[in-house]
């Protein structure tokens, strides 16, 4: 297996939620690719479409969400074209989802081992696999996530939060998938447990030489885990690049302000957030979706939507400052940017 073999390619993917008021464009023309063994972080605030994108990649979207256009190529398979039968075989074997709040998705009245065995049996090539083989594979799935095999006979309530989260990871990865989509795998866990779970995911990824798409809102967490980061805003990828480059020299104004708003342990500084609010994805006006909150915005930003373009060899940004600039100019004096109040019925796009 060559290390840079492409296992996932997403091309111009669009996802809409159908609502009585019109379509909500939750994912709007997202393209990226992942190589075997690569760890990509996808960062965005609530309503940015990150969970919708992750769910679309495993084709688990439910109405009213629908993929309207684009391609997803999974290790050579045209994933959006395959039929239901083949889809069920590809899921878990090729691509696995560790869902949000996975620890609460366990069946409370079923032993952990049986829940892992479920997926193994359902995906068996032959009609019947010997019970001993199943038990062995359950034990291996648990071992992969650092849990001891005796936990197979336990019920979820007998496990701690961190153990439950890792058990859910064992279920998702029992078939040794090539791509793991992990949607906020540590939300609601304490900081020490969070670190342990992320390190488990890292070891699992290395053992399987899998590609990981880590979805999250915590820049620190994503930075600790991923090699590259994609920043999602209003359903669009607005910046993408290696973690170090993106943190040291963010090119998109949104990324800059997001990094500035992170509290650090280095020095006490005046806390500042990003003025305004994310836009409603219903009837998004033309232009850059970040323009109303952007301290750099100029006339062109309000009429023409910027495309994701290369800024350096490895870093891309969707911003009209480029290619005229090579890096983000110093932040202009922050004029009083009006606090945008969300229009009625916007609330949050269901994620």
């Amino acid at each position, binding site marked *: 297996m060559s290390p840079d073999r492409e296992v996932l390619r997403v091309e111009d993917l669009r996802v809409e939620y159908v609502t009585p008021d019109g379509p909500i464009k939750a994912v709007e023309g997202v393209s990226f690719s992942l190589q075997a063994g690569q760890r990509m972080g996808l960062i965005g605030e609530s309503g940015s479409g990150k969970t919708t994108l992750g769910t679309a990649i495993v084709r688990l979207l439910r109405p009213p969400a629908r993929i309207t256009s684009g391609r997803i190529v999974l290790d050579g398979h045209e994933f959006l074209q395959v039929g239901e039968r083949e889809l069920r075989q590809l899921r878990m074997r090729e691509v696995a989802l560790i869902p949000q709040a996975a620890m609460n998705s366990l069946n409370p009245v079923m032993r952990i081992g049986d829940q892992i065995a479920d997926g193994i049996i359902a995906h068996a090539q032959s009609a019947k696999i010997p019970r001993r083989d199943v038990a062995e594979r359950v034990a291996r799935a648990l071992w992969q996530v650092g849990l001891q095999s005796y936990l197979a006979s336990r019920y979820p309530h007998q496990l701690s939060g961190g153990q439950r989260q890792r058990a859910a990871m064992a279920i998702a990865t029992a078939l040794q998938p090539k791509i793991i989509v992990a949607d906020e795998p540590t939300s609601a866990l304490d900081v020490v447990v969070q670190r342990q779970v992320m390190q488990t995911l890292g070891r699992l990824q290395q053992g399987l030489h899998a590609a990981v798409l880590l979805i999250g809102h915590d820049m620190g967490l994503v*930075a600790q885990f991923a090699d590259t980061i994609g920043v999602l805003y209003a359903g669009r990828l607005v910046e993408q690049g290696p973690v170090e480059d993106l943190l040291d020299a963010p090119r998109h104004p949104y990324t800059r302000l997001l990094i500035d708003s992170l*509290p650090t342990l280095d020095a006490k500084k005046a806390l500042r*957030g990003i003025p305004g609010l994310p836009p409603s994805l219903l009837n998004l006006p033309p232009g850059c979706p970040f323009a109303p909150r952007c301290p750099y915005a100029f006339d062109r930003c309000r009429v023409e939507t910027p495309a994701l373009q290369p800024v350096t060899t490895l870093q891309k940004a969707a911003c009209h400052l480029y290619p005229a600039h090579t890096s983000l100019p110093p932040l202009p004096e922050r004029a009083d940017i009006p606090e945008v109040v969300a229009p009625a019925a916007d609330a949050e796009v269901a994620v």
Partner: protein
Amino acid sequence: MTPLLEVRKASKIYGGGLFKRHDKTIAIDNLSYSIPDEKPSITAIAGESGSGKTTLALLMMGFLTPSTGQVFYRGRDVATMLSAERRQFRREVQPIFQDPYEAFNPFYRVDHVLETPLKRFGLTHSKDEARRQIEEALERVGLRPNETLGRFPHQLSGGQQQRIGVARALLCQPRIIVADEPVSMVDASLRATILASLQVLNRDLGISIIYITHDLTTAYQICENIVVLYLGNVAEVGTVDRVIRTPRHPYTQLLVSSIPVADRRRRWGEDSPVEAEATSTLVGGSVGCPFAPRCPSVMDICRESPPPLFVPDAHRAAACFLYRDAPVLPTADVASIWEKEAA
């Protein structure tokens, strides 16, 4: 001088009912803490889930009664207050809740939530005056009255709703605000504005803030002092500069080293040898240091008796026998560690 609020040797024990006599959980274990009257402070109470931080907050606000010990407000025991005193206590000690999406009645406009305390506590004389007070409070927390009033909660973002919560507390003219994880449900870009508004209330209006959190980074940014709880006991206490930048207690060290920093030059180290989770809650009759079962530096003495708070350097105390050569904190009140500074 009498402290404004004082928690004196308070314990809170849950469970242990008729059928589960041996199934007690000690949420807060013999804790003493005070907020001075003269100097407004901003203090973090930090810990993981199950550390007792929310229980301590509820005790301070009088929503829970301690199992043993007492809570005093202006020198009066909260449990036995008369109704007039209780009204003053209720007005002057204000909560801000964790989840703004659940704190508001969805059927009322936000105006209702702001007008009610003014009427309830008789803080206003006319409609116009009420309106002016409300607008002033909204502006203090960085909201524009004309864009906020008249709206329903679902028309506002989580960050705006949470700031309405701060404005509501502010209208009561409180002396103390107890904020329980006020930003954990809010996106990163909006967190800063809410925390900044708490700082403004502390600095400009002299309101003491108790900030309950599991997030040491925000605690470091906005607070002066911190109390780190572990299974209902104080592990470490002191100024944030001491406790967070140079933690002494092995538990605080574990917490600080687990924070994911958005900086690749400071990666998480390898797996720490420490167990990631407390395997048991503190039950009645346990001896020794509550952290001993997970502690990488555990000694025999740690399993024999609970460590007192040692004072290894100024403005900080750690409940750990590693510092047993240092003097012991002379008073039970853990806040005395930073009050000396003010004196």
